[in-house]
Protein backbone atom coordinates (compact mmCIF):
# COMPACT_ATOMS: atom_id res chain seq x y z
CA UNK A 1 0.00 0.00 0.00
CA UNK A 2 1.33 3.46 -0.91
CA UNK A 3 1.45 6.48 1.32
CA UNK A 4 -0.62 9.46 0.14
CA UNK A 5 2.38 11.53 -1.08
CA UNK A 6 3.07 8.95 -3.80
CA UNK A 7 -0.45 9.18 -5.09
CA UNK A 8 -0.24 12.93 -5.71
CA UNK A 9 1.16 12.67 -9.23
CA UNK A 10 -0.67 9.49 -10.17
CA UNK A 11 -3.27 9.83 -12.87
CA UNK A 12 -5.48 6.85 -13.57
CA UNK A 13 -4.56 5.64 -17.05
CA UNK A 14 -6.74 3.51 -19.27
CA UNK A 15 -5.38 -0.01 -19.34
CA UNK A 16 -5.25 -1.45 -22.83
CA UNK A 17 -4.83 -5.16 -22.13
CA UNK A 18 -6.93 -7.43 -24.28
CA UNK A 19 -7.11 -11.14 -24.69
CA UNK A 20 -4.61 -12.64 -27.13
CA UNK A 21 -7.00 -13.54 -29.92
CA UNK A 22 -8.91 -10.29 -30.22
CA UNK A 23 -7.00 -9.00 -33.23
CA UNK A 24 -6.26 -12.33 -34.86
CA UNK A 25 -8.28 -13.97 -37.59
CA UNK A 26 -10.06 -17.20 -36.79
CA UNK A 27 -7.54 -19.44 -38.55
CA UNK A 28 -4.72 -17.79 -36.69
CA UNK A 29 -6.48 -18.25 -33.38
CA UNK A 30 -6.94 -21.96 -34.04
CA UNK A 31 -3.36 -22.25 -35.19
CA UNK A 32 -2.08 -20.59 -32.02
CA UNK A 33 -4.08 -22.89 -29.82
CA UNK A 34 -3.03 -26.00 -31.68
CA UNK A 35 0.64 -25.13 -31.73
CA UNK A 36 0.76 -24.37 -28.03
CA UNK A 37 -0.98 -27.63 -27.19
CA UNK A 38 1.48 -29.59 -29.32
CA UNK A 39 4.38 -27.77 -27.81
CA UNK A 40 3.23 -28.68 -24.31
CA UNK A 41 2.99 -32.30 -25.18
CA UNK A 42 6.40 -32.25 -26.76
CA UNK A 43 7.90 -30.55 -23.75
CA UNK A 44 6.43 -32.99 -21.26
CA UNK A 45 7.49 -35.94 -23.42
CA UNK A 46 11.02 -34.57 -23.58
CA UNK A 47 11.29 -34.36 -19.84
CA UNK A 48 10.27 -37.98 -19.40
CA UNK A 49 13.00 -39.28 -21.64
CA UNK A 50 16.06 -39.99 -19.49
CA UNK A 51 18.51 -40.08 -22.38
CA UNK A 52 17.99 -36.53 -23.52
CA UNK A 53 17.96 -35.14 -20.04
CA UNK A 54 20.77 -35.85 -17.61
CA UNK A 55 19.39 -35.55 -14.08
CA UNK A 56 21.60 -34.03 -11.42
CA UNK A 57 23.51 -36.21 -9.06
CA UNK A 58 21.58 -37.94 -6.29
CA UNK A 59 23.13 -37.61 -2.85
CA UNK A 60 22.82 -39.65 0.32
CA UNK A 61 20.20 -38.72 2.89
CA UNK A 62 21.51 -37.18 6.12
CA UNK A 63 19.77 -36.26 9.33
CA UNK A 64 18.17 -32.84 8.98
CA UNK A 65 18.09 -32.63 5.21
CA UNK A 66 15.01 -31.29 3.50
CA UNK A 67 13.29 -32.54 0.38
CA UNK A 68 11.22 -30.64 -2.14
CA UNK A 69 7.49 -30.56 -1.78
CA UNK A 70 4.76 -30.78 -4.39
CA UNK A 71 2.04 -28.59 -5.82
CA UNK A 72 -1.30 -30.40 -5.86
CA UNK A 73 -4.96 -29.78 -6.67
CA UNK A 74 -7.67 -30.39 -4.04
CA UNK A 75 -10.27 -32.76 -5.48
CA UNK A 76 -12.67 -33.49 -2.63
CA UNK A 77 -13.17 -35.59 0.47
CA UNK A 78 -13.91 -39.30 0.90
CA UNK A 79 -14.15 -41.68 3.86
CA UNK A 80 -11.41 -44.25 4.38
CA UNK A 81 -11.52 -47.29 6.68
CA UNK A 82 -8.42 -48.69 8.39
CA UNK A 83 -7.79 -52.41 8.83
CA UNK A 84 -9.16 -52.27 12.38
CA UNK A 85 -12.45 -50.80 11.12
CA UNK A 86 -12.00 -47.17 12.21
CA UNK A 87 -13.39 -44.64 9.82
CA UNK A 88 -11.38 -41.56 8.91
CA UNK A 89 -12.16 -38.78 6.45
CA UNK A 90 -9.48 -37.90 3.94
CA UNK A 91 -9.00 -35.24 1.29
CA UNK A 92 -7.90 -36.32 -2.18
CA UNK A 93 -5.10 -34.25 -3.66
CA UNK A 94 -4.08 -34.78 -7.26
CA UNK A 95 -0.56 -33.87 -8.38
CA UNK A 96 -1.13 -32.51 -11.89
CA UNK A 97 1.89 -31.59 -14.05
CA UNK A 98 4.22 -30.70 -11.20
CA UNK A 99 7.61 -29.62 -12.49
CA UNK A 100 10.70 -28.11 -10.92
CA UNK A 101 11.17 -24.77 -12.64
CA UNK A 102 14.20 -23.07 -11.21
CA UNK A 103 17.05 -23.60 -8.83
CA UNK A 104 17.98 -20.69 -6.61
CA UNK A 105 21.35 -21.12 -4.94
CA UNK A 106 22.08 -20.04 -1.36
CA UNK A 107 23.38 -16.62 -2.40
CA UNK A 108 20.44 -15.83 -4.68
CA UNK A 109 17.83 -16.90 -2.22
CA UNK A 110 18.57 -15.76 1.32
CA UNK A 111 22.17 -16.64 2.16
CA UNK A 112 21.34 -19.68 4.30
CA UNK A 113 19.59 -22.38 2.30
CA UNK A 114 19.15 -23.16 -1.36
CA UNK A 115 15.66 -23.12 -2.83
CA UNK A 116 13.81 -24.82 -5.64
CA UNK A 117 10.96 -23.16 -7.48
CA UNK A 118 8.22 -25.67 -8.27
CA UNK A 119 5.15 -25.12 -10.43
CA UNK A 120 1.73 -26.79 -10.53
CA UNK A 121 -1.09 -27.15 -13.03
CA UNK A 122 -0.49 -26.31 -16.70
CA UNK A 123 -2.19 -23.20 -17.93
CA UNK A 124 -2.36 -21.24 -21.20
CA UNK A 125 0.62 -19.02 -22.07
CA UNK A 126 -1.53 -16.27 -23.53
CA UNK A 127 -2.33 -14.58 -20.26
CA UNK A 128 1.12 -14.69 -18.65
CA UNK A 129 3.56 -11.81 -18.67
CA UNK A 130 6.79 -11.99 -20.62
CA UNK A 131 9.02 -12.22 -17.54
CA UNK A 132 7.07 -15.22 -16.23
CA UNK A 133 7.17 -16.87 -19.64
CA UNK A 134 10.95 -16.44 -19.74
CA UNK A 135 11.31 -18.47 -16.55
CA UNK A 136 9.16 -21.28 -17.96
CA UNK A 137 10.97 -21.23 -21.26
CA UNK A 138 14.35 -21.60 -19.57
CA UNK A 139 13.13 -24.71 -17.81
CA UNK A 140 11.50 -26.03 -20.99
CA UNK A 141 8.21 -26.48 -19.24
CA UNK A 142 4.66 -25.25 -20.05
CA UNK A 143 3.52 -22.28 -17.94
CA UNK A 144 2.02 -23.18 -14.57
CA UNK A 145 -0.86 -21.77 -12.57
CA UNK A 146 0.84 -21.84 -9.18
CA UNK A 147 4.56 -21.32 -8.62
CA UNK A 148 6.04 -21.76 -5.13
CA UNK A 149 9.49 -21.91 -3.58
CA UNK A 150 10.61 -24.71 -1.31
CA UNK A 151 13.63 -24.32 0.96
CA UNK A 152 15.81 -27.31 0.28
CA UNK A 153 19.08 -28.64 1.67
CA UNK A 154 22.05 -28.90 -0.67
CA UNK A 155 21.97 -32.66 -1.03
CA UNK A 156 18.38 -32.60 -2.35
CA UNK A 157 18.77 -30.37 -5.39
CA UNK A 158 16.87 -31.40 -8.50
CA UNK A 159 17.44 -30.28 -12.08
CA UNK A 160 14.90 -27.76 -13.36
CA UNK A 161 12.46 -29.48 -15.70
CA UNK A 162 12.12 -32.74 -13.77
CA UNK A 163 8.53 -33.80 -13.22
CA UNK A 164 7.42 -34.62 -9.69
CA UNK A 165 4.79 -37.26 -8.97
CA UNK A 166 2.63 -38.37 -6.09
CA UNK A 167 5.01 -41.26 -5.40
CA UNK A 168 7.29 -38.64 -3.88
CA UNK A 169 5.40 -39.40 -0.65
CA UNK A 170 4.61 -42.75 0.97
CA UNK A 171 1.60 -43.72 3.08
CA UNK A 172 2.38 -43.07 6.74
CA UNK A 173 4.32 -39.86 6.20
CA UNK A 174 3.15 -36.56 7.60
CA UNK A 175 2.72 -33.40 5.54
CA UNK A 176 1.87 -29.74 5.93
CA UNK A 177 -0.54 -28.37 3.36
CA UNK A 178 -0.73 -24.65 2.59
CA UNK A 179 -3.51 -23.11 0.55
CA UNK A 180 -5.53 -19.93 0.26
CA UNK A 181 -8.64 -20.29 2.40
CA UNK A 182 -12.09 -19.66 0.92
CA UNK A 183 -12.75 -15.94 0.75
CA UNK A 184 -15.78 -14.89 2.76
CA UNK A 185 -15.65 -11.17 1.96
CA UNK A 186 -16.33 -8.48 4.50
CA UNK A 187 -17.57 -10.28 7.58
CA UNK A 188 -18.84 -9.23 10.96
CA UNK A 189 -17.12 -9.85 14.22
CA UNK A 190 -19.20 -12.91 15.17
CA UNK A 191 -18.24 -14.92 12.12
CA UNK A 192 -14.73 -13.57 11.78
CA UNK A 193 -13.51 -13.78 15.38
CA UNK A 194 -16.19 -15.88 17.08
CA UNK A 195 -17.56 -13.21 19.37
CA UNK A 196 -20.72 -14.12 21.25
CA UNK A 197 -22.82 -11.13 20.23
CA UNK A 198 -25.84 -10.06 22.28
CA UNK A 199 -29.13 -11.80 23.17
CA UNK A 200 -31.95 -11.80 20.65
CA UNK A 201 -34.62 -10.62 23.07
CA UNK A 202 -35.02 -9.08 26.51
CA UNK A 203 -35.07 -5.50 25.31
CA UNK A 204 -31.92 -5.41 23.16
CA UNK A 205 -32.26 -2.33 20.92
CA UNK A 206 -30.71 -2.91 17.51
CA UNK A 207 -27.76 -4.80 19.05
CA UNK A 208 -27.52 -8.51 18.30
CA UNK A 209 -24.23 -9.08 16.42
CA UNK A 210 -22.17 -6.05 17.38
CA UNK A 211 -18.70 -6.26 18.97
CA UNK A 212 -19.74 -4.52 22.19
CA UNK A 213 -16.88 -2.91 24.11
CA UNK A 214 -13.58 -2.16 22.34
CA UNK A 215 -11.13 -2.14 25.28
CA UNK A 216 -10.38 -0.76 28.78
CA UNK A 217 -11.44 2.75 29.72
CA UNK A 218 -9.72 6.04 30.54
CA UNK A 219 -6.21 4.80 31.35
CA UNK A 220 -5.05 3.77 27.88
CA UNK A 221 -7.77 6.03 26.41
CA UNK A 222 -7.21 4.36 23.06
CA UNK A 223 -8.02 1.16 21.21
CA UNK A 224 -5.01 -1.17 20.98
CA UNK A 225 -3.56 -2.08 17.62
CA UNK A 226 -4.73 -5.43 16.37
CA UNK A 227 -8.15 -5.12 17.99
CA UNK A 228 -10.44 -7.77 16.55
CA UNK A 229 -12.95 -5.93 14.39
CA UNK A 230 -15.07 -6.68 11.32
CA UNK A 231 -13.18 -6.87 8.03
CA UNK A 232 -12.27 -9.08 5.10
CA UNK A 233 -12.15 -12.71 6.05
CA UNK A 234 -10.58 -15.57 4.16
CA UNK A 235 -8.54 -15.63 0.97
CA UNK A 236 -5.30 -15.79 2.99
CA UNK A 237 -2.71 -18.53 3.05
CA UNK A 238 -3.46 -21.01 5.83
CA UNK A 239 -1.38 -24.10 6.66
CA UNK A 240 -2.72 -27.34 8.05
CA UNK A 241 0.12 -29.12 9.90
CA UNK A 242 0.85 -32.73 10.60
CA UNK A 243 -1.59 -34.44 8.21
CA UNK A 244 -1.05 -38.16 7.74
CA UNK A 245 -1.02 -39.64 4.26
CA UNK A 246 -3.31 -42.68 4.20
CA UNK A 247 -2.99 -43.80 0.61
CA UNK A 248 -1.08 -42.94 -2.54
CA UNK A 249 -2.47 -43.76 -5.99
CA UNK A 250 0.57 -43.77 -8.27
CA UNK A 251 -1.40 -44.42 -11.46
CA UNK A 252 -3.42 -41.22 -11.23
CA UNK A 253 -1.05 -39.31 -8.89
CA UNK A 254 -3.57 -38.93 -6.07
CA UNK A 255 -2.63 -38.48 -2.41
CA UNK A 256 -5.17 -39.28 0.31
CA UNK A 257 -4.41 -36.88 3.15
CA UNK A 258 -6.08 -37.06 6.57
CA UNK A 259 -8.69 -34.52 7.63
CA UNK A 260 -9.75 -31.30 5.99
CA UNK A 261 -7.64 -28.78 4.14
CA UNK A 262 -8.11 -25.04 3.64
CA UNK A 263 -9.27 -23.91 0.21
CA UNK A 264 -12.12 -24.68 -2.14
CA UNK A 265 -12.40 -27.67 -4.46
CA UNK A 266 -9.93 -27.61 -7.39
CA UNK A 267 -7.71 -25.07 -5.67
CA UNK A 268 -3.91 -25.38 -5.83
CA UNK A 269 -2.00 -26.31 -2.70
CA UNK A 270 1.58 -26.47 -1.55
CA UNK A 271 2.44 -29.81 0.08
CA UNK A 272 5.57 -30.10 2.26
CA UNK A 273 7.08 -32.72 4.55
CA UNK A 274 6.21 -32.16 8.19
CA UNK A 275 9.39 -31.58 10.22
CA UNK A 276 8.43 -32.39 13.79
CA UNK A 277 10.65 -35.25 14.99
CA UNK A 278 7.83 -37.01 16.87
CA UNK A 279 5.74 -37.47 13.75
CA UNK A 280 8.45 -38.01 11.15
CA UNK A 281 8.85 -41.33 9.49
CA UNK A 282 12.40 -41.13 8.24
CA UNK A 283 12.80 -42.39 4.75
CA UNK A 284 16.37 -43.43 4.43
CA UNK A 285 16.43 -42.94 0.71
CA UNK A 286 16.28 -39.65 -0.96
CA UNK A 287 14.82 -37.22 -3.36
CA UNK A 288 12.09 -37.72 -5.85
CA UNK A 289 11.10 -40.68 -7.84
CA UNK A 290 13.87 -41.09 -10.44
CA UNK A 291 13.05 -40.04 -13.98
CA UNK A 292 13.56 -43.50 -15.45
CA UNK A 293 10.82 -44.98 -13.32
CA UNK A 294 8.50 -42.07 -14.13
CA UNK A 295 8.80 -42.84 -17.84
CA UNK A 296 7.83 -46.46 -17.34
CA UNK A 297 4.44 -45.54 -15.77
Amino acid sequence: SRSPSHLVGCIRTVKTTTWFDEHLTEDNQEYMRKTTAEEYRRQTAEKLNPLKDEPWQRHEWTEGSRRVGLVAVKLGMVPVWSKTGERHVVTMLQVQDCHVIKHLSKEEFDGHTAALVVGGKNVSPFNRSESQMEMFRNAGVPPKQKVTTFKVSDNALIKPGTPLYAAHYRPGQYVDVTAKSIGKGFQGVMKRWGFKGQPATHGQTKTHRRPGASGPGGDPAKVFKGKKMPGRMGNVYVTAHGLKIWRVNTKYNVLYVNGSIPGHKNCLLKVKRHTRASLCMHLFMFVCFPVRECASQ
Partner: protein
Amino acid sequence: MAACGKGLDKFMFSLRLLRNLQLQNERFLSTSVCRLAVGGSSEQPPKFTPPSKPVIVDKTQTVASTRSHLSPEFIPPRQRTNPFKFYIERKDMIRRRKVLNIPEFYAGSILAVTMADPNASGKMNRFVGICIQRGGHGLGATFVLRNIIDNQGVEICYELYSPRIQQIEVLKLEKRLDDNLMYLRDALPEYCTVDPDMKPEPISPTGEVPVNKLKVRMRPKPWSKRWERPKFNIQGIRFDRSLTPEQMEHAQKWAQPWREYDMLKEYDTSKLEEQILSEVQREMSK
Protein backbone atom coordinates in the same frame (compact mmCIF):
# COMPACT_ATOMS: atom_id res chain seq x y z
CA MET B 1 -33.84 -97.28 -14.26
CA ALA B 2 -32.85 -98.26 -10.76
CA ALA B 3 -29.52 -99.63 -11.94
CA CYS B 4 -28.50 -96.33 -13.47
CA GLY B 5 -29.59 -94.36 -10.43
CA LYS B 6 -26.06 -93.14 -9.63
CA GLY B 7 -25.28 -91.83 -13.03
CA LEU B 8 -28.69 -90.21 -13.26
CA ASP B 9 -27.68 -86.91 -11.67
CA LYS B 10 -24.72 -86.26 -13.94
CA PHE B 11 -26.49 -87.17 -17.08
CA MET B 12 -29.65 -85.37 -16.05
CA PHE B 13 -27.62 -82.16 -15.89
CA SER B 14 -25.89 -82.74 -19.20
CA LEU B 15 -29.16 -83.71 -20.89
CA ARG B 16 -30.80 -80.54 -19.66
CA LEU B 17 -27.90 -78.53 -21.05
CA LEU B 18 -28.21 -80.29 -24.37
CA ARG B 19 -31.89 -79.52 -24.47
CA ASN B 20 -31.35 -75.88 -23.73
CA LEU B 21 -28.39 -75.30 -25.98
CA GLN B 22 -29.21 -77.31 -29.05
CA LEU B 23 -32.98 -76.85 -29.08
CA GLN B 24 -33.44 -80.21 -30.64
CA ASN B 25 -36.70 -81.66 -31.72
CA GLU B 26 -38.28 -83.16 -28.63
CA ARG B 27 -39.68 -86.09 -30.43
CA PHE B 28 -36.26 -86.95 -31.82
CA LEU B 29 -34.67 -86.83 -28.43
CA SER B 30 -37.32 -88.81 -26.68
CA THR B 31 -37.41 -91.48 -29.37
CA SER B 32 -33.63 -91.78 -29.31
CA VAL B 33 -33.68 -92.09 -25.56
CA CYS B 34 -36.41 -94.71 -25.83
CA ARG B 35 -34.37 -96.68 -28.32
CA LEU B 36 -31.32 -96.55 -26.09
CA ALA B 37 -33.36 -97.56 -23.11
CA VAL B 38 -34.53 -100.53 -25.06
CA GLY B 39 -30.88 -101.31 -25.84
CA GLY B 40 -30.16 -101.22 -22.10
CA SER B 41 -26.58 -99.74 -22.31
CA SER B 42 -25.25 -98.32 -19.07
CA GLU B 43 -23.87 -95.04 -20.59
CA GLN B 44 -27.08 -93.44 -21.88
CA PRO B 45 -29.70 -92.84 -19.22
CA PRO B 46 -33.08 -94.53 -19.62
CA LYS B 47 -36.20 -92.49 -20.26
CA PHE B 48 -37.14 -90.53 -17.22
CA THR B 49 -39.50 -87.71 -16.43
CA PRO B 50 -37.81 -84.72 -14.92
CA PRO B 51 -39.08 -83.94 -11.40
CA SER B 52 -41.50 -81.07 -11.11
CA LYS B 53 -39.45 -78.97 -8.72
CA PRO B 54 -38.70 -75.39 -9.83
CA VAL B 55 -35.35 -74.50 -11.34
CA ILE B 56 -33.06 -73.11 -8.62
CA VAL B 57 -32.39 -69.53 -9.50
CA ASP B 58 -29.46 -67.81 -7.78
CA LYS B 59 -31.48 -64.79 -6.70
CA THR B 60 -28.50 -62.58 -5.90
CA GLN B 61 -27.06 -62.89 -9.40
CA THR B 62 -30.16 -63.00 -11.58
CA VAL B 63 -31.89 -59.98 -10.13
CA ALA B 64 -28.96 -57.74 -10.97
CA SER B 65 -28.58 -59.13 -14.45
CA THR B 66 -32.13 -58.87 -15.69
CA ARG B 67 -33.25 -55.57 -14.19
CA SER B 68 -30.69 -52.87 -14.80
CA HIS B 69 -30.68 -50.67 -11.74
CA LEU B 70 -28.19 -48.02 -10.81
CA SER B 71 -27.78 -47.43 -7.08
CA PRO B 72 -28.52 -43.78 -6.24
CA GLU B 73 -25.14 -43.18 -4.59
CA PHE B 74 -23.37 -43.53 -7.96
CA ILE B 75 -25.09 -40.43 -9.30
CA PRO B 76 -22.88 -37.44 -8.46
CA PRO B 77 -24.56 -34.41 -6.91
CA ARG B 78 -24.59 -31.13 -8.76
CA GLN B 79 -21.36 -29.56 -7.55
CA ARG B 80 -18.30 -27.86 -8.90
CA THR B 81 -16.14 -30.93 -8.32
CA ASN B 82 -13.89 -32.42 -10.94
CA PRO B 83 -15.67 -35.46 -12.48
CA PHE B 84 -12.34 -37.23 -12.11
CA LYS B 85 -12.89 -37.38 -8.34
CA PHE B 86 -16.22 -39.19 -8.87
CA TYR B 87 -14.49 -41.55 -11.29
CA ILE B 88 -11.90 -42.55 -8.71
CA GLU B 89 -14.56 -42.95 -6.05
CA ARG B 90 -16.61 -45.11 -8.40
CA LYS B 91 -13.61 -47.37 -8.97
CA ASP B 92 -13.31 -47.90 -5.22
CA MET B 93 -17.05 -48.51 -4.92
CA ILE B 94 -16.94 -51.13 -7.70
CA ARG B 95 -13.97 -52.83 -6.04
CA ARG B 96 -15.97 -53.16 -2.84
CA ARG B 97 -19.04 -54.37 -4.72
CA LYS B 98 -17.03 -57.15 -6.28
CA VAL B 99 -16.25 -58.47 -2.82
CA LEU B 100 -19.59 -57.86 -1.12
CA ASN B 101 -22.82 -58.16 -3.02
CA ILE B 102 -24.87 -55.02 -2.38
CA PRO B 103 -28.35 -55.82 -3.66
CA GLU B 104 -30.89 -53.48 -5.12
CA PHE B 105 -33.22 -52.03 -2.50
CA TYR B 106 -35.39 -48.99 -1.92
CA ALA B 107 -36.83 -47.07 1.00
CA GLY B 108 -39.57 -49.37 2.29
CA SER B 109 -37.76 -52.66 1.64
CA ILE B 110 -36.98 -54.92 4.55
CA LEU B 111 -33.28 -55.70 4.94
CA ALA B 112 -31.11 -57.82 7.21
CA VAL B 113 -27.54 -56.60 7.76
CA THR B 114 -24.76 -58.61 9.44
CA MET B 115 -21.94 -56.44 10.70
CA ALA B 116 -18.63 -57.41 12.30
CA ASP B 117 -18.56 -56.30 15.92
CA PRO B 118 -15.61 -57.09 18.25
CA ASN B 119 -17.82 -56.79 21.34
CA ALA B 120 -20.62 -59.08 20.22
CA SER B 121 -20.65 -62.80 20.96
CA GLY B 122 -19.70 -64.60 17.77
CA LYS B 123 -18.12 -61.35 16.52
CA MET B 124 -21.13 -60.58 14.27
CA ASN B 125 -24.40 -58.89 14.92
CA ARG B 126 -27.46 -59.08 12.71
CA PHE B 127 -30.13 -56.41 12.47
CA VAL B 128 -33.39 -56.62 10.55
CA GLY B 129 -35.47 -53.57 9.73
CA ILE B 130 -37.26 -51.41 7.21
CA CYS B 131 -35.07 -49.05 5.23
CA ILE B 132 -36.46 -45.61 5.89
CA GLN B 133 -33.85 -43.45 4.19
CA ARG B 134 -30.99 -43.75 1.73
CA GLY B 135 -28.57 -40.85 1.87
CA GLY B 136 -25.10 -39.74 0.92
CA HIS B 137 -23.17 -39.95 -2.32
CA GLY B 138 -20.17 -42.01 -3.27
CA LEU B 139 -18.29 -44.05 -0.70
CA GLY B 140 -20.05 -42.41 2.24
CA ALA B 141 -23.51 -43.58 1.18
CA THR B 142 -25.70 -44.65 4.10
CA PHE B 143 -29.05 -46.25 4.73
CA VAL B 144 -31.11 -46.21 7.91
CA LEU B 145 -32.92 -49.36 9.11
CA ARG B 146 -35.72 -49.06 11.62
CA ASN B 147 -37.30 -51.77 13.76
CA ILE B 148 -39.18 -51.98 17.03
CA ILE B 149 -37.62 -54.43 19.50
CA ASP B 150 -39.24 -55.01 22.92
CA ASN B 151 -41.45 -51.92 22.49
CA GLN B 152 -38.40 -49.75 21.81
CA GLY B 153 -37.89 -48.20 18.40
CA VAL B 154 -34.34 -48.71 17.15
CA GLU B 155 -32.80 -47.07 14.12
CA ILE B 156 -29.34 -47.95 12.85
CA CYS B 157 -27.56 -45.98 10.15
CA TYR B 158 -25.22 -48.23 8.14
CA GLU B 159 -22.63 -47.18 5.61
CA LEU B 160 -22.99 -49.25 2.45
CA TYR B 161 -19.27 -49.43 1.75
CA SER B 162 -17.99 -49.95 5.27
CA PRO B 163 -15.71 -53.02 5.48
CA ARG B 164 -17.43 -54.01 8.74
CA ILE B 165 -20.57 -55.05 6.88
CA GLN B 166 -20.39 -58.76 6.10
CA GLN B 167 -23.73 -59.36 4.40
CA ILE B 168 -26.74 -57.37 3.21
CA GLU B 169 -29.85 -59.45 2.53
CA VAL B 170 -33.07 -58.14 1.09
CA LEU B 171 -35.88 -59.98 2.85
CA LYS B 172 -38.64 -58.13 1.02
CA LEU B 173 -38.06 -55.89 -1.97
CA GLU B 174 -40.69 -53.23 -2.41
CA LYS B 175 -41.07 -49.52 -2.88
CA ARG B 176 -43.36 -47.15 -1.05
CA LEU B 177 -45.11 -44.01 -2.13
CA ASP B 178 -42.25 -41.82 -0.79
CA ASP B 179 -38.44 -41.91 -0.91
CA ASN B 180 -38.05 -40.88 2.69
CA LEU B 181 -40.00 -42.75 5.35
CA MET B 182 -38.88 -40.71 8.37
CA TYR B 183 -42.56 -40.24 9.24
CA LEU B 184 -42.64 -43.84 10.43
CA ARG B 185 -41.17 -42.50 13.67
CA ASP B 186 -44.52 -40.82 14.35
CA ALA B 187 -46.63 -43.63 12.96
CA LEU B 188 -48.24 -46.41 14.96
CA PRO B 189 -45.67 -49.04 15.97
CA GLU B 190 -47.32 -51.78 13.94
CA TYR B 191 -45.96 -50.24 10.72
CA CYS B 192 -42.31 -50.49 11.81
CA THR B 193 -42.30 -53.85 13.54
CA VAL B 194 -40.41 -56.38 11.51
CA ASP B 195 -39.96 -59.94 12.70
CA PRO B 196 -36.19 -60.50 13.23
CA ASP B 197 -36.52 -64.11 12.09
CA MET B 198 -38.38 -63.24 8.92
CA LYS B 199 -37.64 -65.52 5.96
CA PRO B 200 -36.56 -63.87 2.71
CA GLU B 201 -39.38 -63.60 0.20
CA PRO B 202 -38.68 -64.60 -3.41
CA ILE B 203 -37.81 -61.61 -5.55
CA SER B 204 -38.98 -61.58 -9.15
CA PRO B 205 -35.94 -61.08 -11.39
CA THR B 206 -37.84 -59.24 -14.11
CA GLY B 207 -40.52 -56.61 -14.14
CA GLU B 208 -41.15 -53.62 -12.00
CA VAL B 209 -40.45 -53.46 -8.31
CA PRO B 210 -43.82 -53.75 -6.50
CA VAL B 211 -45.04 -50.45 -5.05
CA ASN B 212 -46.80 -50.78 -1.71
CA LYS B 213 -49.51 -48.12 -1.71
CA LEU B 214 -49.93 -48.35 2.02
CA LYS B 215 -51.21 -45.23 3.78
CA VAL B 216 -49.91 -45.20 7.31
CA ARG B 217 -51.91 -44.15 10.39
CA MET B 218 -50.15 -41.75 12.69
CA ARG B 219 -49.96 -41.29 16.43
CA PRO B 220 -51.69 -38.17 17.78
CA LYS B 221 -49.90 -34.91 17.20
CA PRO B 222 -47.32 -33.41 18.05
CA TRP B 223 -45.08 -35.15 15.53
CA SER B 224 -41.32 -34.79 15.19
CA LYS B 225 -41.82 -32.83 11.99
CA ARG B 226 -44.89 -31.22 10.45
CA TRP B 227 -45.40 -33.95 7.87
CA GLU B 228 -48.55 -32.36 6.48
CA ARG B 229 -46.57 -29.44 5.00
CA PRO B 230 -46.13 -29.53 1.21
CA LYS B 231 -42.32 -29.32 1.35
CA PHE B 232 -42.15 -32.95 2.49
CA ASN B 233 -44.63 -34.00 -0.20
CA ILE B 234 -45.68 -37.15 1.61
CA GLN B 235 -48.16 -39.41 -0.10
CA GLY B 236 -48.05 -42.30 2.33
CA ILE B 237 -49.87 -40.91 5.41
CA ARG B 238 -53.61 -41.05 6.12
CA PHE B 239 -54.03 -37.43 7.03
CA ASP B 240 -57.80 -37.64 7.23
CA ARG B 241 -57.41 -39.76 10.37
CA SER B 242 -55.29 -37.24 12.28
CA LEU B 243 -55.94 -33.82 10.77
CA THR B 244 -59.06 -31.81 10.00
CA PRO B 245 -59.52 -30.37 6.50
CA GLU B 246 -58.95 -26.88 7.99
CA GLN B 247 -55.53 -27.95 9.28
CA MET B 248 -54.66 -29.40 5.88
CA GLU B 249 -55.59 -26.13 4.22
CA HIS B 250 -53.57 -24.19 6.77
CA ALA B 251 -50.56 -26.34 5.95
CA GLN B 252 -50.89 -25.38 2.27
CA LYS B 253 -49.87 -21.84 3.25
CA TRP B 254 -46.28 -23.10 3.20
CA ALA B 255 -46.63 -24.31 -0.35
CA GLN B 256 -44.12 -22.94 -2.86
CA PRO B 257 -45.91 -23.41 -6.19
CA TRP B 258 -43.20 -21.51 -8.09
CA ARG B 259 -40.57 -24.17 -7.35
CA GLU B 260 -41.76 -26.54 -10.04
CA TYR B 261 -41.16 -23.80 -12.64
CA ASP B 262 -37.71 -22.87 -11.35
CA MET B 263 -35.33 -23.90 -14.12
CA LEU B 264 -32.18 -23.28 -12.14
CA LYS B 265 -33.17 -25.97 -9.66
CA GLU B 266 -33.55 -28.57 -12.38
CA TYR B 267 -30.94 -31.32 -12.39
CA ASP B 268 -31.40 -33.71 -15.24
CA THR B 269 -29.42 -36.85 -14.57
CA SER B 270 -30.71 -39.11 -17.35
CA LYS B 271 -27.63 -38.93 -19.61
CA LEU B 272 -25.22 -39.11 -16.67
CA GLU B 273 -27.10 -42.12 -15.33
CA GLU B 274 -26.88 -43.97 -18.62
CA GLN B 275 -23.15 -43.35 -18.87
CA ILE B 276 -22.49 -44.36 -15.31
CA LEU B 277 -24.73 -47.41 -15.54
CA SER B 278 -22.93 -48.70 -18.63
CA GLU B 279 -19.55 -48.06 -17.01
CA VAL B 280 -20.53 -49.82 -13.80
CA GLN B 281 -21.96 -52.84 -15.61
CA ARG B 282 -18.84 -53.11 -17.72
CA GLU B 283 -16.54 -53.01 -14.69
CA MET B 284 -18.64 -55.44 -12.66
CA SER B 285 -18.65 -58.02 -15.41
CA LYS B 286 -14.83 -57.98 -15.71
